[in-house]
């Protein structure tokens, strides 16, 4: 099976196209006089960071598509919510204790309810411990000092995960079993709703995400006469991404719920017959996808320094492209696609500066080409529809 797959014509063609591109890039790099080693390092760091962020967002797309065959158009807006939650957590703290208590009760209560339903924590002892951790932790974090980016990231991930679950419960759950086009339309509507909701609640203007952390402190270094512009975030993003991927991999491959997720992705009906609670698995998928999107959102905001309610649009589209490149439904594929897209974007702009205006157009062209000629992606399963 594997041998036949490798020797299949389309694989060979895509390998050939890839080889041609590599040769062209090499020629281009040789022909550029000012393309020094420092720029190679710089581009590599930038591409790795951007690719990691795309990979994190793409995972949410690919997981949701794998489970319920829905292109979650609103995922980019979840990403936006994540960065705004972190922004408010980091700028509004420390809160007065009364408000903090109120926020803790509302937010912690919702988080607790969602977590309990997601992870089967009905046992009283576990519930008690969890509620103690959540309520105590939230209250402690919000009341006493200004939050740093680590706490902001953590809180935002939790809150965004819950937001994702709520989105699924309100907008997508009533449409279980509906035609896929209807679900896509609903997702588009949810995306528009969240964009305008963001403009209404957060304000339409661009806000500086001024994380005064060591992450944005310039740590430039020199290679020969050239300077490499280096900040902590360039290392932190790939590291956190790798950590999250490791945890996700452990979760999906080692735990009962992960097994249930894999089973549901393979065949939801049969999984249901085998006793998998499919609704719970779907909600869990949205939770995990939103957590990853929130992590990406916060790090994106720190990296680029500003947030606005429409910021999720282009990263969302690009991450979706990445998921399609990797083969939608496949977790390693999403990571691979995300990294690939990050590298392509950075290197195209760096090597062909005149094309930088076409950066966004390029993402769409890539998306269309992949969907047209290799819809199963690089490592995805075959998606031929049967009669």
């Amino acid at each position, binding site marked *: 099976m594997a041998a036949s797959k490798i020797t299949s014509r389309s694989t060979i063609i895509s390998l050939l196209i890839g080889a041609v591109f590599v040769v062209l890039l090499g020629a281009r790099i040789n022909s550029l006089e000012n393309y020094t080693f420092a720029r190679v390092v710089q581009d590599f760091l930038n591409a790795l960071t951007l690719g990691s962020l795309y990979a994190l967002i793409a995972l949410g797309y690919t997981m949701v598509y794998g489970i319920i*065959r829905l*292109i979650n158009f609103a995922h980019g807006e979840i990403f936006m919510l994540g960065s705004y939650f972190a922004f408010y957590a980091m700028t509004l703290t420390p809160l007065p204790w009364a408000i903090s208590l109120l926020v803790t009760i509302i937010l912690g209560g919702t988080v607790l309810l969602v977590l309990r339903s997601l992870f089967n924590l009905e046992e009283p002892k576990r519930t008690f411990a969890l509620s103690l951790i959540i309520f105590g932790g939230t209250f402690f974090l919000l009341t006493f000092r200004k939050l740093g980016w680590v706490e902001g990231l953590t809180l935002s991930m939790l809150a965004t995960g819950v937001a994702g679950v709520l989105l699924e419960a309100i*907008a997508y759950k*009533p*449409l279980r079993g*509906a035609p*896929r*086009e*209807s*679900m*896509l*339309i*609903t997702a*588009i*509507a*949810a995306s*528009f*709703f969240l964009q*305008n*909701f963001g*403009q*209404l609640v957060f304000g*339409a203007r661009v806000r500086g995400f001024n994380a005064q952390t060591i992450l944005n402190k310039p740590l430039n270094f020199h290679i020969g006469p050239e300077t490499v512009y280096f900040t902590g975030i360039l290392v932190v993003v790939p590291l956190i991404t790798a950590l999250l991927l490791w945890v996700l991999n452990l979760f999906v491959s080692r735990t009962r719920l992960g097994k249930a997720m894999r089973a549901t992705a393979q065949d939801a009906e049969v999984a249901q017959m085998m006793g998998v609670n499919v609704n719970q698995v779907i909600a869990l998928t949205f939770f995990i996808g939103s957590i990853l999107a929130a992590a990406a959102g916060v790090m994106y905001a720190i990296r680029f320094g500003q947030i606005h309610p429409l910021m999720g649009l282009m990263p969302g*589209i690009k991450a*979706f492209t990445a998921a399609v490149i990797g083969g939608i439904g496949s977790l390693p594929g999403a990571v691979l696609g995300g990294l690939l897209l990050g590298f392509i974007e950075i290197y195209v702009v760096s090597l062909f500066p005149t094309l930088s*205006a*076409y950066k*966004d*157009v390029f993402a*769409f*062209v890539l*998306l*269309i080409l992949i*969907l*047209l000629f290799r*819809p199963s992606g690089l490592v995805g399963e075959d998606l031929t*529809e049967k*009669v």
Partner: protein
Amino acid sequence: MRDYLLTLLSVGLAALALYFLTVSEGTSGLLSALTLIFIWGIAAISLNLINGQLGILSLGHHGFMLIGGYVTALLMLPARERRPFRTRLLSDWARNHLDLDKWLRGLGLDALANSIDAKFIIALFIAGLAAALLGIIVGAPSLRLKGDYLAIVTFGFGEIIRLLPNAPEVAAFTNGPLGIKGIPGNAGNIWWTFLALLLVLWFFSRLKFSSYGRAFEGIREDEIAAEAMGVNLAYHKILAFTISAFFAGVSGGLYASYLQSVDTQTFNFFVTFFLLVAISLGGLGSITGALLGTAIVVLVRVYGGFLEQPNPAWVGYLSGAVLMLAAFAFSAYIRKARRLRPVIEPKHFIFGAVGAVLLVITIAFFKQPWMQQTVQFFGMRKMLLAVILILIMIYRREGVMGRAEFSWKLIIGPREDIPTDEQRKQDAWLSNPDLNPGLKEDGDDDASA
């Protein structure tokens, strides 16, 4: 015959009503709303051809409209408006050659070139053709892909078309993000859009019940069955995209000339979303529904301004009343549908209670100044449209009209579900075992099945 006369009569009445609107004072707001309904109605009907009749979810309609808008703008731009472009971005070549006036005079058709109306019609036609050409390209992937993947591809095409006018190389023609301003044309005049809509309605209603329309609907229901019946899938799919794109281009041209300006933000993805709400609301696959949905959606957009400047007082009244009504309606519905004895469900009780508390608070604090302050709620209309679309998808996927069309028979004609005397006679013959020998066997078949 009767139907034709009635149609003519109602068109005449509509025209008369429009005439009275145009001559009476203080109706400019209503007239511009009507113009918008007509323009967007053409776009919605053309989108309905792909999304409703052909059954392919297409999300690239804003691209077609943008092409139509830009082509109309470039062709119609008068010479004195072209000059300032030299200092900006429009290239000399585009300034000198993309001019309908020159083309017509070159062909010796001075009479046409002197009439702005004739030029406008020709420009609209060319805009439609340009969009139709693009429709062939965008429609081509539908031969390979299906469902949501195809939807994403059309979306990608639409977005590429939207992004291109801002790119530096193309900006020489399109003036980049600044757009083109000062487009003459008569679309602001309601008669033009009215006439265009009538033509479009005529064309699409003929198309729907022609062999082509049947073939489109056959493809929607089952591609393989349609192919087996001899429908050429590739031809019909591309044809539908081409026709739809043509009229989208025309409506884009009308809209550009109504606004007298065009830029890439005029035709962003929200346009397609807006049309999608309209046709989903009216009923996918129904031309009448598309027009109806457009009317509702445009009216929300034009007259929904008050939604964005509410004050707490009436928000309290409205939401309280809505919540209480919803609670009553839900519990009544559940009691009726499941034949429960009158038990109050906790969810409905909470709804009703929150509504009642809101109402009480609003009434109690009505005189307070903070109750009367106006709050700015930007984006409320768009959120409302999104919520409407989600609710339609959840509760009534077939929209208001379903796939039904308006017809005179529906209103005043003989009801088809009551058999005529002749049909009764036939039925009597069919159910008489002496006259219909096949009856007994049929009965047996039914029993065994």
